[in-house]
């Protein structure tokens, strides 16, 4: 039995975006982690749409551009969220249209309540309790579908809402930088990214940049590599949304998308044909938007 030096055998989790998408079967329960117009996994959403993946359930605390894109492409059957918009550029028009025409089943929460369900999933808690949502119309449909229960505290009898843990199959998060073992850093506010990744059975990352293990400050790790299945490098992969410290959102492109999504039909199809289905890679898309 040979002794080894005190240096770590670290796994290499770097793959291509195409490999990440190939591992996602139709009907998967995806957890997304963008927020409106910031840090959306757009390169991933494009690749998923090109792969023709269908029947997805998506959980995302705050929906955004990526969410609407998947709805526009008809990739989603179910959505669980607390809200969605593309900030001042508009609403999630494709999502809202699909909800109203019945092609997308929606479960709605408050922001904290859904973050707590993911948090309970992350920690393996039997269930979590909150006062949020009590009295609101959000409660009844959740209780009816086993997603919430009105109970009393065993300590003081106070009414509270119990929520079961949530365990999506695969979380996909766009990060600033990851090392080759998947230890990843997110700069700026992190909204529900930590618990979205930790609640999921598998975590895939898209990173602006990939470095060697040991180059990142261990105190700045947002997602430990131990939880990560694979990481793909796609610089500018959040376009047209902003990635803090890397690039701003592309206002002109967001306006163009919002108009197409609001119009729907041929206008939205034309957008998808030109920018998503009509290109082979995200690099081609980036050339198309900023030639």
């Amino acid at each position, binding site marked *: 039995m040979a002794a080894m030096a005190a240096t770590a055998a670290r796994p290499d989790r770097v793959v291509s975006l195409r490999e990440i998408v190939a591992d996602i079967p139709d009907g998967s329960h995806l957890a997304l982690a963008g*927020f*409106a*117009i*910031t840090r959306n996994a757009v390169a991933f959403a494009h690749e998923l749409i090109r792969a023709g993946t269908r029947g997805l359930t998506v959980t995302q*605390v*705050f929906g*955004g551009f990526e969410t609407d894109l998947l709805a526009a492409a008809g990739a989603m059957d179910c959505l669980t*969220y*607390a*809200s*969605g*918009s593309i*900030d*001042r*550029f508009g*609403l999630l028009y494709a999502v*809202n249209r699909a*909800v*109203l025409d019945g092609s997308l089943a929606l479960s*709605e*929460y*408050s*922001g*904290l*309540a859904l*973050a*707590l369900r993911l*948090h309970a999933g992350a920690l393996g808690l039997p269930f979590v309790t*909150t*006062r*949020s*949502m*009590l*009295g*609101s*119309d*959000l409660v009844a449909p959740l209780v009816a579908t086993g997603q919430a229960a009105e109970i009393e505290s065993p300590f003081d009898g*106070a*009414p*509270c809402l119990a929520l079961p843990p949530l365990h999506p199959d695969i979380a996909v998060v766009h990060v600033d930088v990851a090392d080759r073992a998947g230890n990843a850093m997110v*700069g*700026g*506010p*992190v*909204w*529900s*990214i*930590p*618990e979205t990744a930790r609640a999921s059975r598998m975590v895939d990352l898209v990173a602006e940049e990939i470095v060697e293990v040991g180059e990142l400050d261990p105190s700045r790790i947002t997602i430990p590599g131990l939880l990560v299945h694979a990481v793909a490098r796609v610089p500018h992969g959040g376009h047209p949304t*902003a990635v*803090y410290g890397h690039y*701003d*959102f592309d*206002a002109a492109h967001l306006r163009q998308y919002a108009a197409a999504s609001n119009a729907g039909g041929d206008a939205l199809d034309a957008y998808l044909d030109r920018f998503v289905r009509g290109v082979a890679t995200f690099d081609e898309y980036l050339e198309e938007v900023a030639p």
Partner: protein
Amino acid sequence: MSGEEKWTRAEMLAVAGSLQVVDGDVTVVGLGLPQIAALLAQRTHAPTVRLLLEIGVFEPVPAEPAMGIADPRMWKDATAFASTLEVLGVMVHGGRVSLGLLGALQVDQWGSLNTTEVEAPDGSRRRFRGSGGSNDISSNASRTVVIMTHQSRKFSEALTFLTSPGRRIKEQTRATVGLPSQGPCAVVTDRAVIALTDAGAVLESVHPGEQPDTVLADTPIPLNVPAGGPKETPAPTATQLALIRTELDPNNWYTS
């Protein structure tokens, strides 16, 4: 333009909204006009207001106009970047937020809000943003203020969808439902300030140039009028208007 054509209705709304902020408030700010009202307060009478954004931002001091709370311009000079659990959980649900500033599609006489879905007279439905942190803030903040434009269809005794709870919820008190705080204390519109009390809604003031009777007619919820009639809301000052026009919203994204 209203008020002798010296300011827009949206400017008046931002100013009246800002006056609800008390210096020292720990304030969670929703998307849109609440942002402008909070920043106006921060730059005028409430320099120590502590802003929080549900995206996970502590105490930002934005210097440039932003397209929403997900626009990094809105996070400028923050003291801490954190998570939604930290803002909506530790700060809001933990009872550490004194004021929430929220938008709404529809409001009832107790300040319950709908930000989810509205129904047109022809029965067709339109969907909007959903709750996000709105429900958490209405449920848990010491007080909340609703900031919205004043249209008759936005006031209703029977909300299409009750997204966020008011001072009473379908005839129940907040305490009965299990909510900790008093809840919404005012609806500020571009025409009036409506105070919300446990005895019902009160037309506290109308903005310069508005007639109380016309406002009442366009507010189809039970609305009390104080003896002596409503006051007049203070007119925007030149300083407030200059701030809005040159710094907070020079592109008229919110206040046109």
